[in-house]
């Protein structure tokens, strides 16, 4: 400390070595750092002012709604996912309605049309969002300071406001869930019917696992199961005797069968009763066939006569009538033959079996 310090040049002490080290271009470097800091700060402030829309003219839209819940100043208003404006202020109106003032830059105001709908919606996760939905882009532009009112308000509103709340259903959901849990609790409680049923099932399975097996489980006790087994034994014996009885019956049926075969031969066998009858019917059929042939020939003669008497067609009306009658008779005979054939089916099926 033997140096003579001056006010402008403080004493150079060993403690000052850090600050007395020679530094090249000290002033320039520090000035550069300060200039960089200043430029960055000023640019950032200007950028933030630009981002907050200080430099652009805006138009005002007032959204009138019944609650400002979740809405905050500075909140974005989006149109198809793009931000087109911000909430500038929120105020409680004289009629107890909430007035949300939205500032929309002039360049984005073209998306706001008359009959526009603004939706204030709360998502299940996240905050509240205000969304503009243009109904008709052909409609005239929304004027500056337009007031949008809730749906169902005054008629003739220039635009409307809707509220949608994704979390509105949560209380109802919670109530339902609570009921469900109560039911579940009731179901699984020790004294519940489900518990009692399970206890019964356990008793039943214990019985099944016991000596009586499944039968004891089904009938309630081993005694009952033994009775069933005894009943089954008796049934088996009964079935044996029934089998023997049916064998004897079979023999009886075989004999009856032989008797029936004999009777069949008598009735339907060669030279049997049915054979004779069939023959008689065949003859009758032949006679009727002949009669039909004769009548056909008469018909042909009559047709010839009709041709010959072509000149005297008018006078042959009787003949035509006659022919019609003959035709009718012929049809009747044909029908009669068909009828006989139908009623005597032996022609088609010569053998008949009795059951």
């Amino acid at each position, binding site marked *: 400390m033997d140096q003579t310090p001056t006010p402008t040049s403080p004493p150079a002490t060993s403690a000052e070595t850090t600050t007395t080290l020679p530094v090249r271009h000290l002033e320039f470097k*520090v000035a550069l750092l300060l200039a*960089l800091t200043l430029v960055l700060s000023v640019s950032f402030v200007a950028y933030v002012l630009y981002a907050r829309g200080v430099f652009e003219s805006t138009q005002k839209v007032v959204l009138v709604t019944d609650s400002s819940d979740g809405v905050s100043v500075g909140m974005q208003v989006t149109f198809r996912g793009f931000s087109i404006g911000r909430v500038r202020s929120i105020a409680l109106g004289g009629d107890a309605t909430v007035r949300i003032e939205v500032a929309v830059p002039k360049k984005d105001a073209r998306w706001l049309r008359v009959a526009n709908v603004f939706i204030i919606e709360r998502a299940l*996760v996240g905050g509240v969002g205000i969304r503009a939905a243009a109904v008709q882009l052909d409609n005239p532009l929304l004027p500056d300071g337009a007031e949008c009112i809730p749906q169902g308000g005054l008629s003739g509103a220039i635009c409307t406001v809707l509220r949608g709340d994704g979390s509105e259903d949560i209380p109802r959901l919670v109530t339902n869930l609570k009921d469900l849990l109560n039911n579940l609790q009731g179901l699984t409680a020790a004294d519940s019917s489900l518990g009692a049923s399970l206890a019964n099932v356990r008793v039943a399975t214990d019985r099944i696992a016991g000596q009586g097996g499944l039968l004891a489980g089904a009938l309630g006790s081993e005694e009952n199961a033994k009775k069933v087994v005894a009943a089954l034994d008796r049934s088996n014996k009964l079935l044996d005797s029934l089998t023997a009885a049916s064998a004897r019956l079979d023999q009886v049926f075989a004999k009856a069968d032989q008797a029936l075969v004999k009777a069949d031969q008598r009735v339907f066998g060669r030279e049997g009763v049915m054979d004779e009858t069939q023959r008689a019917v065949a003859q009758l059929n032949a006679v009727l066939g002949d009669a039909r042939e004769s009548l056909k020939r008469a018909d042909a003669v009559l047709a010839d006569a009709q041709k010959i008497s072509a000149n005297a067609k008018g006078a042959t009306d009787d003949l035509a009538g006659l022919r019609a009658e003959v035709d009718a008779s012929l049809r009747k005979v044909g029908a009669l033959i068909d009828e006989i054939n139908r009623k005597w089916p032996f022609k088609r099926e010569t053998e008949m079996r009795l059951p």
Partner: protein
Amino acid sequence: MSIRAIGRSASGGLEVFAAWCASWWRVLHFGATALVMAASPQAYDRATSNLMARQIYFTAWQILPGFVLVCALLSYMVIRIVVAAAGTYGLAEYALSFAVRVQVLELVPTFVALFVALRSGAAINTEVALMHIRGDLDALQRAGADPMRHQLVPRVIGSAVSVVSLTVIGGAIALMLAYVAMYGFSPGGIDEYTEVIGSIFDLPVALGLGLKAPFFGLAVAIIPISASLEVPREARFAAIAVRSGMVRLFLALALIEGASLAIKYI
């Protein structure tokens, strides 16, 4: 324990508390004096300007490359984590907002303050403690030079300017990296990015950030210097001066950060 002993310990506790209060009062008094002196133009002459420039050089310029690198790496990492976490919880639309709020408003200023406190705050603390113990400051006083004006205020101003400068640079890096992390190098996200930045930096937030950095800067110099001037003039007290200065500085930084958070979010 006898009543006398209780009374002794109570009076001892009161004494400690009174000393603690007096010590903080000296910090505030020193800070206020330094600020008033810094605000008067006649406090600056060639020597003080030179010392201030040196303080800025050693505190900010010398570490700038390393700081930029560490800050960029840290920022990018934190931003990616925040963006990924927001995406996981289905809050991707708020990712940029989260990232900028976390990084630019909170982490970068605190990181810069701690960085400067550990590097330059500790150095200032030791330097001034040694000057005080050796009687250099008294020598200056006797020589007619105001040690406050020539030795202490330039350090305070230099530290504050350095912290503000590094915070601005770190914030700019974080803002740029947030854009890159969200949109890559395509200019397609500029509109959305501008919207988000506009929505984050309203007047209270911008003011809070603008005040927090200078407060951090002042604390980094004022508290260690004040702690250095308090100790008795014995060499063994130099370590105690540094210890108490750094502890108080850490407490003050935590208090400033806590107050800033409380004002913003409560």
